């Protein structure tokens, strides 16, 4: 396969905390929000794109994710590639705490990166699955703001689901 020397176009992005990131066009096009912007403003590709809703920490993680997934997609599909993608995704979320997951979700939502958003949403859903209500409250820092009567009514309505949850691990 011959490799033609191609000038890869770079796009500059500026985060909320004023860091500038230079990314290859291919990666920037993974962000549907930015792709749409360029589709509508083809002359704007030289400008720096401000991303007031995204921190540099988030953006660098997102850029890493998109880079890796672009590389995976460039290779031939096979079950071993699928396995590698799964492992990569698992590692990507595993170490992150809820707070950074939340920031990533908001950023992926703002930038409209469907695959990443789906993956992150699934990861959070997995942290809710089969857990008790008390666990979910503690884990996500939610306050139980129901009155005792409301709590009882909601409990009765949803009682059927509460049998068979995982025992809380802490």
């Amino acid at each position: 396969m011959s490799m033609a020397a191609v000038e890869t176009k770079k796009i500059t992005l500026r985060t909320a905390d004023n860091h500038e990131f230079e990314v290859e066009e291919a990666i920037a096009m993974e962000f549907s929000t930015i792709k749409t912007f360029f589709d509508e403003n083809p002359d704007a590709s030289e400008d720096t794109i401000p991303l007031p809703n995204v921190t540099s920490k988030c953006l660098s993680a997102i850029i890493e994710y998109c880079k890796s997934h672009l590389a995976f997609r460039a290779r031939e599909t096979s079950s071993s590639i699928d396995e590698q993608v799964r492992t990569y995704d698992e590692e990507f979320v595993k170490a992150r705490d809820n707070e950074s997951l939340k920031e990533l979700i908001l950023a992926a939502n703002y930038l409209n990166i469907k695959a990443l958003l789906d993956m992150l949403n699934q990861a959070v859903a997995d942290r809710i699955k089969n857990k008790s209500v008390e666990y979910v409250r503690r884990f996500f820092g939610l306050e139980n703001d129901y009155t005792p009567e409301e709590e009882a009514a909601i409990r009765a309505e949803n009682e059927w689901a509460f049998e068979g949850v995982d025992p809380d691990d802490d």
Partner: protein
Amino acid sequence: MWSTLPFDVLAKIFSFLSPDSLACARSACRQWHTCARTYPSTLPQHHQAWFLALPTRNRGQCCYVHNPVVDKWHMLSLDFLPDPIRPVASIGTLILVRPTNCTILQLALCNPFTRQFKYLPMLNITRTNPAVGVVILEPGQPGPNPDFRVYVAGGMSEAPRGGATYEATLEMYDSVDDAWHIMGFMPVEFAVRLTVWTPNESVYSDGVLYWMTSARAYSVMGFHLGSHTWRELSVPMADRLEFAALLWRNGRLTLVGGTCGEDACIWELTEGDGWGLIEKVPIELGIKFLGGKRSWGSTKCVGSEGAICLYREFGSGMVVWREIEEKVRWEWFWVEGCHFIRDKQVQNLQIKGSV
């Protein structure tokens, strides 16, 4: 703070939860409860279908659902229903139902998880015992429940001079404008067959609504929605099958049936209206299911994307053929019947549970 996440973002996360986990999330705090209620999210591709069992004698006013992920049965109260119901079809997270306390057909939508119930408007032409078919437009589209259409064909209505007559009109309900439209007429012979011989639900595949007769000798009628034409299909071993059910699977019309003393089979409709055998129920599962008997009578079958269930009474077990890897692999499972209630006749269907 998770409690201040914008609703549309949170709702997307909820769409990945199965009904039981979502019930838990709903109970956590007001914000999450409101979000779940405002965005009854339907992304059926994220979940395996849940099997819903409705006792045919609805005195108990409850239903039972099976969670395929953890192989567990749950009981849901149906005390929010104004009348006893029979299921007709599943539409995303909703069930299309028929109140059973009147002979004239009326339809309603119900979600047993969120305890929602809503009547559809009355038909233009009242009739008893027609065939009902559901077409879901663009299944898998994001957002709230998909748009759908309900077709009602045949049945008996009041004749102009008293008595009853076979009703040859076809009506269609469109969820987009929440109204019934008369779509034309059908040959009387089909109206008769649809009224007398098909209490079963229909299957929609590739522009055609199919209904099957309810007993030997089985035959299938297809109504082409675009051209409003009817045609008839033969059924393999039509006069020997002890049970038969029509389903939709992997984009094809699928038939499940069994003959006495032999394995139950699954066929797929192929080009030229022929049927190709694609699978048989594994012998051990078949034996377990029939409890040592050889007859498949009283077996019923339902299916939705990703799973086909063979069942009998509530206490006895089910045989399930489930999609494991998308479009690639299907496997057979045994599901133990629900043991705290035995010997209740049930009507069932599968619903993609997400609320």
